[in-house]
């Protein structure tokens, strides 16, 4: 894959890898910002709320202690009502390089995934993020991919369109 900035539109596309033999999902995406900055957008709560939640919901952070050994909890709010809650721990916060978290949707309290995010410096102020999710078994992985994991995912792309329109 080219990292040439003139091809950024195509190289920025998200790629997904779901191994047929392992209960994992790998999500790879390049960003036009250096690792330090991308990392901040992942761990600073005022930045996280701006992008992590699904577009049709508001994300409210109840707890956010983004240090190694810390923990977090946030809820998704739709039309003033809590529709989902998530929590987990920050297993490792290694600035600008690596972020390892556990993740549980409270609606399925026995389920937990291990989320490892790696931030690769591509040079020229660009970063490749590689997210690896490991869940309990293949059925769970398939169900997560089939459901899209997000709340209210079918509501389309209006929020994205609006963002893009703002330029």
């Amino acid at each position: 894959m080219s990292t040439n900035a003139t091809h950024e539109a195509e190289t920025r596309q998200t790629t997904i890898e779901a191994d047929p033999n392992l209960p994992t999902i790998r999500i790879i995406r390049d960003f036009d910002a250096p690792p330090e900055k991308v990392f901040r957008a992942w761990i600073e709560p005022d930045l996280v709320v701006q992008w992590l939640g699904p577009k049709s919901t508001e994300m409210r952070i109840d707890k956010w202690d983004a240090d190694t050994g810390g923990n977090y909890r946030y809820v998704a709010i739709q039309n003033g009502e809590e529709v989902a809650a998530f929590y987990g721990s920050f297993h490792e916060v290694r600035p600008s390089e690596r972020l390892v978290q556990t993740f549980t949707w409270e609606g399925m309290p026995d389920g937990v995934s291990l989320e490892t995010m790696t931030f690769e410096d591509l040079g020229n102020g660009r970063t490749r993020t590689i997210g690896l999710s490991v869940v309990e078994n293949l059925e769970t992985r398939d169900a997560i991919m089939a459901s899209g994991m997000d709340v209210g995912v079918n509501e389309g792309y209006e929020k994205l369109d609006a963002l893009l329109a703002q330029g």
Partner: protein
Amino acid sequence: MSEDRLSRVFAALADPTRRDIVARLAVGDATVSQLAAPYNVSIQAVSKHLKVLEDAGLVTRSQDAQRRPRHLEAEVFDMMTAWIERYRRQAEERYRRLDAVLASMDDDKSKPTINKGAAS
């Protein structure tokens, strides 16, 4: 496609011999004995693998009653591709919001924005 069906498809494809069978059927229909030929396994073993692929809807039997050649249902792969693509688009949508956040961070690069609780 239902989640159950998708799980069956994924499970069916988790086995290397079955992936091999699928690859061969992608070239053209084949009978059980034709499929068994390259492997060091019995026709019964290949039949078991075919049963899993049939249950997942990936493979069907043609009408020819004598030879019963197996046929690959390519549209199942199209559905699976569409399903993974939908998941990918959701991730892409989220990351485009992150693009916008990163762009907005340009202005206050030097300003520390860590904000755990009370601002001071």
